[in-house]
């Protein structure tokens, strides 16, 4: 099972990875650091047919680097707060990943995302970040069990 996390906070990810691997033995957990990395790797990710993608909302575009590329206009305009939504939309637009369960996992309140969530398909779910990991694991189990087997 291949699970992708789009998460730019390595400290949070350390904790999450441990618990996810414990809850889903044998699963490959991959982390994508930044929105920029996600955009450049989405085809590769899609080819690998992930069982689920967990997306943080607030993502930086890239790490400092002398060779970093400038972000596209929509990223400049939309900014940091809409990075997660843009990643979700790319997944939905990709033929291979459009039906993959997507979990938005963020500190933002559901009411902050109400307008976006209302127009996203049922394959996209929301969970607020918590100090406890259990709600995340529980939600992931639920979504994976509902997934149509290939």
């Amino acid at each position, binding site marked *: 099972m291949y699970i992708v996390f789009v998460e*730019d906070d*390595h*400290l949070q990810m350390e904790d999450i990875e441990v618990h996810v691997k414990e809850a889903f033995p044998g699963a490959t957990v991959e982390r994508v*650091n930044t929105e920029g990395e996600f955009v450049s790797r989405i085809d590769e990710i899609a080819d690998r047919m992930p069982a689920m993608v967990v997306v943080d909302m*607030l*993502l*930086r*575009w*890239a*790490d*400092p*680097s*002398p060779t*970093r590329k400038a*972000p596209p206009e929509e990223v*400049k305009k939309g*900014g*940091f707060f809409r*990075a997660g939504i843009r990643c979700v939309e790319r997944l939905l637009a990709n033929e291979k990943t459009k039906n993959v369960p997507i979990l938005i996992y963020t500190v933002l309140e559901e009411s902050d995302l109400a307008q976006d969530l209302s127009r996203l398909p049922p394959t996209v779910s929301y969970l607020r970040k918590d100090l406890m990991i259990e709600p995340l694991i529980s939600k992931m189990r639920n979504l994976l069990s509902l997934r149509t087997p290939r």
Partner: protein
Amino acid sequence: MTELNPSSPAANDHIVDLVSTALKQDKRSGLLRMLESIGMALRADGCMIWEATPTTSLKKNAGQRRLLVLDEWTADGHVNNFYDLPLESGAGWVVLHEQPRNVPDARTDTQISLPHANQIGARSLLILPIFFSDNSRTAALTLYRGTLAPFSQAEEAEAKQLALLLPDLYQTIRAKMGFNLMRSIRDELQRAKPRLSQQASLAAMLKGVLQSVCNLVGDTFEAVETSIFLEEPRTLPRIYRVAATTWTGMFRKRVYRSIEKEKCLTAWVIANRRSVKLFDLARFERDRGAIKETYPGINWADSLDFKSTIRRRLNLTSTDESPPLSFMASPIMVGDKILGIIRCCTAQSGPRYFGERDLELLDLVAAQIGQYWSKWLSELEIQKENQSWHELVERIGQLNQFALNELNRESLEEKAIFAEALEVARSTITEADTLDVRLFNPRTRQLYFAKTLGDAWQAGSQSEIDARHQVTYDVDNRPAQSIGENVFQTGTVQLITRPSQSPHYAGKVNFPAVKRMIVAPIKVADKTLGVLDILSTQNRKFPGNAERIAELLGQQIGLYQYMADAIKNRRRAELDLRDEIKERNRILEDLSHQVKTPINQAFARTRRLLENEVDEKRIYRLQAIRGLCGKAKRVSMSMKLLATLARKEPIKLKLENLYLDLLMRILIEAASDSRLLVEPGRRIKTEVKRETFNPREISQVRVDFDLLEQAVGNILDNACKYSYENTVVQIYGGVTRNGRFHISVINEGLPISAKDLSHCIERGWRSEEAKQVTGEGSGIGLWIVKGIMDAHRGTLLINPTTVENKTEVRLIFPF
């Protein structure tokens, strides 16, 4: 006596003499000169010309048929004092039968009135009909000799020839007379160029010109009295004052006011707008019936005491018959508007009275005067309007400045602006004497008096004054119940004359003496905020531009009111905002304080655990926790410092001497914590250059340790966040060229351009590149560091990025 052959050279000479005499004449007296020429040609002692009473048909009303002397010449220059003959006389017979009559001896001809013949000293007479080519008159020419010397056939033939020429020559003289008069009057009137004056009326300004016109008319008609009365409609409507006169005697009646009630000739002409010509005022009572048939309701009051004055001037005895007191008057009009009257009166020895032609000429004179008078009135009106516009522009400029000063005051009070605006209205519309501003109250939906001006507002007792000012008017009635309500609903200015007679005016605040009023909307764009009332108790009308001025002032007042409201609302909002910010800052500080304690405890416990820990993995985890606690601590401190700096208050310091050990611990912990918060895959290291810190230099520095931790933590945070992967963030100390101690951090990463250097320390600013590589962040880190260094009287120095992408941030401390 030598008989004349009518076609003899002598007869021709007489004709030539008559014609050349006629061509030299241009006055009424020209007829006399022609009679003289005829009389002398035929060696007569006298020559008279009679005409039938002009307005009476010869065929009817026998009792009124008379012949009047048109003019007469006597060889010895005496003046005959009778002026008319009955139609049943020799001259009357000639007029009726249109045939000449040669009377050898008046004593034996029964048709001739012997008393009249004796009166003029006529013995032999020759009477000839006179035919005017336009049939305008019926006349007869009488030649007479005082002795028994009948006129021969040849003389009769020559007289007929001369009589044939007489009418046309007389018409020519009349035409010349009329032409010269009109031209002279026109030249006089054209010279006049009245200029607006506060002191003088138009008539006073043009007195000289009008007097010249009077004199010209008087000379032409040989009138004893010629007077012109004129109205100045805007200043004194329906009042006709004497503008000029040739009468040198007593002049009692100089002004005509209530024309309908006046019983006199002048008032009748003005009221009926018709010319009048009366043959003999002395016979007014006797001829009243006939006169009133022609001029219904006319009366004569002899305001000049004409009858007595003329008798005295002509030295007439009580038995002498006075000559006709002939009168004519023409209304001076333009269109159907009556502007005044010109009247003439004549009474001179010898037959002098005004004929129809004279009245027609006077009508033309009146029309010309009317044309110019109307033109001057319009020109003055235009001058006055221009002046008032000019003054209004100036006053509006002053009003705007006044309003600006008032609006900028702390204690803004728009009533002062209204008061000033009302003063402007009063000074530019000089007829205004009672004014007010009424504003709309949206809560009660009524108009109320916001400001008033004028003595009428302050009349009566204090309670009456108060009651008057407290009256209100509804605005929602359909149809409108008051003038103000109507103006408020329609948004259009209204001019009302005799408002006390309007059902919409009387009843509330009533000024009975008001003769006219203007009510203009107080508006801004399409929104009506109230009305401006301008009232006048004067007889003069408002000037033509008064409504426009009122409308303009209404818009100005509307704008001031709108701005005053906007400023008051803004100030209220600012106060509210200030209060809200104060409250938020207080909450921020409170939250910061609440968070500070548990974080400090967590930080301290983690530090203690680290002191005794040996397991590397655990050390790493505890260091990460310490780093997170440190970050949380800095965020909490930032909230508190944000509140203090936002209030522009100084940061309070708890200063202590700086020691090397403590400084090292702060720097090493901060360096480690910052590194651990960065993605491990980027392999960023931190290095504290211990050897650069000299204890002796440090010991002279006094700092607040918590704030030093905050400042160092913030700049290290930035250095690690923005460093490129596989680089080292270096922390070192030293002394500047001025000998001041500094702590510096150098990193290799995102460059800061020289252009952005000054922005770095601005609250909330982050560069575009910074936003892309960090995502979260409020942009207040360096702003807080600057605040901390300012509190220490130190300096935050950021050096521009070098070509190797190295950026240095330096904290410089005072001694």
